[in-house]
């Protein structure tokens, strides 16, 4: 499990703990002082990211927000992608 933190400029702190193997994201946990409405959507996002190819991570995260009413405040979908990549050392 690798962890990274990213302070979004003008926004909130995002941290990711993630694990990848064979080009796939095995698991990710996102923490920080950002806001997401509704809050339980974070668990749904983490679930959706399990097992996806790393190459598809950015579009999966963006797609999650585009296809729902979930609102992210203090960070953007691409900030999430960024911090997960950071945690994986890429």
């Amino acid at each position, binding site marked *: 499990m690798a962890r990274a*933190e*990213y*302070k979004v*400029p003008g*926004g*909130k*702190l995002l*941290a990711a703990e993630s694990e990848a193997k064979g080009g796939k994201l095995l698991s990710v*946990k*996102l*923490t*920080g*002082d*950002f*806001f*997401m*409405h*509704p*809050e339980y959507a*974070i668990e749904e996002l983490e679930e959706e990211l399990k097992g996806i190819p790393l190459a598809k991570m950015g579009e999966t995260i963006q797609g999650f927000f585009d296809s729902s009413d979930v*609102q992210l*405040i*203090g960070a953007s979908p691409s900030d999430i992608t960024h911090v997960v990549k950071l945690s994986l050392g890429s």
Partner: protein
Amino acid sequence: MSESWRLIDMRVEDAPTQMAIDEAIAYARVKEGNPNTVRLYRWKPSAVSVGYFQSLEKEVDLEACRRMGVDLIRRITGGGAVYHDYNGEITYSLVAPDDDKRIPRDILESYRVICGAIVTGLGGIGVDCEFKPVNDIVAGGRKISGNAQTRRHGVVLQHGTILVDSDIRTMFKVLRVSEAKISDKLIKAVEDRVTNIRRYLGRDISFDEVRQALISGFEGTFYVSLIPGKLTDYEEGLVEEYKKRYSSWEWVNKR
């Protein structure tokens, strides 16, 4: 005559009870048709609350809390960790329907409006402060209030901390501040990022003075009268139920 909102005034309770009360008022607001409600309250014992999404162990020095008898709780709202000092802090909460015309639908804008009540109130006792997006209020560039909001059950619930005479030393003993956050602000001493009303005004100030100021701030901002009231039996029942969840380690250590 202006509309009346309910004021639940300066109830002192432990952390699970305080968080359960806010959630109960939010849940019951539409269901029971209760008036909009403002609460002012203090936490006994002192406690650290973490935001819904925060990692407990990364944000809080658990050993320091244990040593100092500081309780731990996870909120249903996002945002950052707060040290609720029994001797130096007032927490407020506001519950109103999410279609109330006085509260913008846009979440960021609604922070500005609701925090505006705090800014106006504190301004009345000489604390020249301003809203700083996303969810802070600063005085002289230093944070004096942090705020967090959730929307559920057809309502907006916003609660926030007002640092009256909080022990800032202890605050930074129990809270861990991430390196990433410090470097972004370009300030080495984290203590310099925070202030409290007493320090800002340079004089002693009573809870009652701040309480009165906050009440005027809410009344003036929303054109309402805050009428002291109490929780309904239904709300009290919900509080008992919710308290159990808030007290569980599974919830507190959820992330």
